[in-house]
């Protein structure tokens, strides 16, 4: 009797030992590296939706991401998939290192908005990944301050100046600018280009005209005319400080990207109850700067290449795009048919469909150089070392020095 129950116990244990590894093999674990923590809920949902794959997301700080990625991709502990920064200047580096390869035929890009494909295209014209997230650069403002002072969204540059004047009289900083973050100044410049100049920037973006041309000079001149309404310690303000200030109500408006409206961003973390409003930068250009924030890429040296490619193909589908819209709260790169339920998404989606600018400077083919030149030039301007004319000359000199 004892022997029989003993044998039963042992066979049950053996059965369990054999069954457990088998069930584990049924699910493949893929790692995805990113700098965007807002992607976590999305990939949890994708893991649930897909039976045979489990995606582990590793988030690194934006500042360290590129360095970590380079190190990881050269070792055995690298990711299976990763998010890449947009533009040929990023893609080329990794393509020449053999870490990414052009997309296989199994990935169907027909549903993706064609304008966003440039984020995943190298200078050889081949597409290496699937673009994600359309971001917009616009004015994000504290709605409660506007309501308190009975202000409505200005539609013209003159109305904008009047609004800023009222805000200043009521001891609120009208526009907060992050002077310490060069890249955020480049973002601001891009937003101003679209709103104040619009289509006339096309010539400058394709480098047929210099930055000292009228299309960009008027951007610099207008920004200079706003100097009395910008935070006095602009040169000392950093990016998160700027976002915290608009959340706290110390400043009314910031020029920032759509990602800052996410519930995981600094603004929501500073004050979860803050009401934000979005508006295009009022100007004669009438456009809103929109771009794809990067691309999902597969590590060509990954041990689980097949599964990774399958997952990449899924990111180009409508089902994934809807999950993206629902869980990340940003705009997906899928062209049509996505329902946006978030407060700010629908508004931003209308900006993109009606007012998107038809060229790219920031986050475009020469993204790296744009940030390296425009950021410090604006810092020089904010420090009072150059005037508006000097600012455009600095930028043009910088591009010339880089043979662009």
């Amino acid at each position, binding site marked *: 009797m004892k022997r029989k129950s003993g044998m039963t116990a042992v066979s049950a244990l053996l059965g369990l030992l054999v069954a457990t590894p088998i069930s584990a093999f049924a699910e493949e674990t893929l790692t995805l590296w990113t700098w965007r923590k807002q992607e976590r809920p999305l990939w949890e949902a994708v893991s649930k939706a897909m039976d045979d794959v489990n995606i582990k997301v590793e988030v690194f700080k934006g500042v360290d991401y590129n360095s970590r990625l380079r190190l990881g991709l*050269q070792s055995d502990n690298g990711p299976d998939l990763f998010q890449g920064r947009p533009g040929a200047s*990023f893609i080329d580096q990794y393509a020449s290192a053999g870490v990414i390869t052009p997309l296989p035929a199994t990935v169907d890009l027909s549903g993706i908005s064609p304008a966003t494909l440039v984020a995943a295209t190298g200078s050889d014209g081949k597409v290496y990944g699937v673009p994600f997230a359309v971001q917009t650069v616009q004015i994000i403002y504290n709605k409660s301050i506007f309501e308190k002072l009975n202000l409505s969204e200005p539609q013209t540059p003159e109305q904008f100046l009047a609004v800023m004047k009222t805000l200043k009289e009521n001891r609120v900083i009208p526009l907060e600018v992050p002077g*310490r973050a060069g*890249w955020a100044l480049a973002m601001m410049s891009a937003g101003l280009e679209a709103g104040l100049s619009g289509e006339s920037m096309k010539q400058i973006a394709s480098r047929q005209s210099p930055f000292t041309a009228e299309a960009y000079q008027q951007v610099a001149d207008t920004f200079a005319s706003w100097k009395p309404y910008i935070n006095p310690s602009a040169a000392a303000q950093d990016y998160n400080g700027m976002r915290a200030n608009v959340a706290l109500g110390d400043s009314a408006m910031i020029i920032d990207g759509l990602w800052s409206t996410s519930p995981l961003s600094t603004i929501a973390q500073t004050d979860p109850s803050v009401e934000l409003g979005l508006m295009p930068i009022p100007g004669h250009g009438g456009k809103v700067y929109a771009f794809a924030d990067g691309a999902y890429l597969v590590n060509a040296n990954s041990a689980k290449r097949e599964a990774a490619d399958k997952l990449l193909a899924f990111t180009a589908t409508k089902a994934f795009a809807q999950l993206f819209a629902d869980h990340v709260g940003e705009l997906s790169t899928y062209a049509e048919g996505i329902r946006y339920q978030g407060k700010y998404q629908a508004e931003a989606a209308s900006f993109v469909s009606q007012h998107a600018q038809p060229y790219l400077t920031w986050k475009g083919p020469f993204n790296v150089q744009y940030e390296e030149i425009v*950021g410090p030039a604006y810092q020089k301007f904010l420090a009072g070392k150059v005037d508006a004319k000097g600012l455009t000359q600095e930028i043009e000199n910088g591009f010339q020095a880089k043979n662009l």
Partner: protein
Amino acid sequence: MPHAPSPDDYSDDLSAELLRSDVKKTQGLSFRQKEKLQYALLLIPGCLLYGIFNLLPLIGTLVLSFFDWPGIGPATFVGFDNFTKLLTDAYMSDQLWNAFQQTFVFFVICISIFLGLGTTFALLLSWNTAGKSAYKLLFFMPYPLAAVAVAFLGQLIVDVRGPINQLMMHWDLISAPLMFLGEADTALPTIALFQSWQKLGFSIMLILSAILGVRADLLEAAVLDGASRWQCIRHVVFPVLAPAFVLITILTLVDVFNNAEYVLILMGPDAGPYYSTDILGTFQYRTAFGTSGGSGTADLGMAAAIGMVISVLILPATIYLALRNMRNR
């Protein structure tokens, strides 16, 4: 009973000498040789450590400076191109000389505080000052703190909403808050002050131990001869402090020219506002790993070239000081 011949058996020196050398050969290593072998064995661990962690990376950096490598992918050999570009291309050489000037200013501020304030406090601690053990503890406490903690604390103190500005405004000394870290003129000195505050304790201890090493009988003789306190300090104590001063200068020189922790923590690799806090360490970091926007390109070959230039810049000063110190002994 016959015994083996010994040198004492012989009266003439040549035969004695010959026998002595034979005796030596048969008895293994001499004392001298054993002594030298001991020295070598004791030095080997130190040399190995130094070789692996200092020399090898230095040689590696030298080799890397002849290549163009973006951190991933193939590395192309470019010979002296990196150095040529660094020294002649306007974009790079402007940044290099700006960084060098600012590093020098940073160094001067740090060394003035270390030697000036350090000596003053060390002197005060060497006398019968009331509560001097408590002071010693207080002076040395910042030293083991992490640079991140000190930088963060410093930033809070000089912030526009921080205590310095608020107190000055409360006492009507200023009408608008001063942007210590926001103005191009004050940012670098402010950061230099943070670093000096943290590392002052070490200089005080070094100088204090040198002061305490002054021979008491020399001081007594000076006092008996009628020297005042200041004359004692100037003519008896200070000459003895020279080695300590040299050591502090060398350590600070190497630290300021090689490391950039405070600037990187407070201002990031962009070293704002507008490169006014850019020192050689941040210039190298920015070239190696890109700017804070995350889109910057990495150019590790160029960064290695910058590293070699930095070494060349500080090497003469360090060697001169070390030699001078050795000669004075």
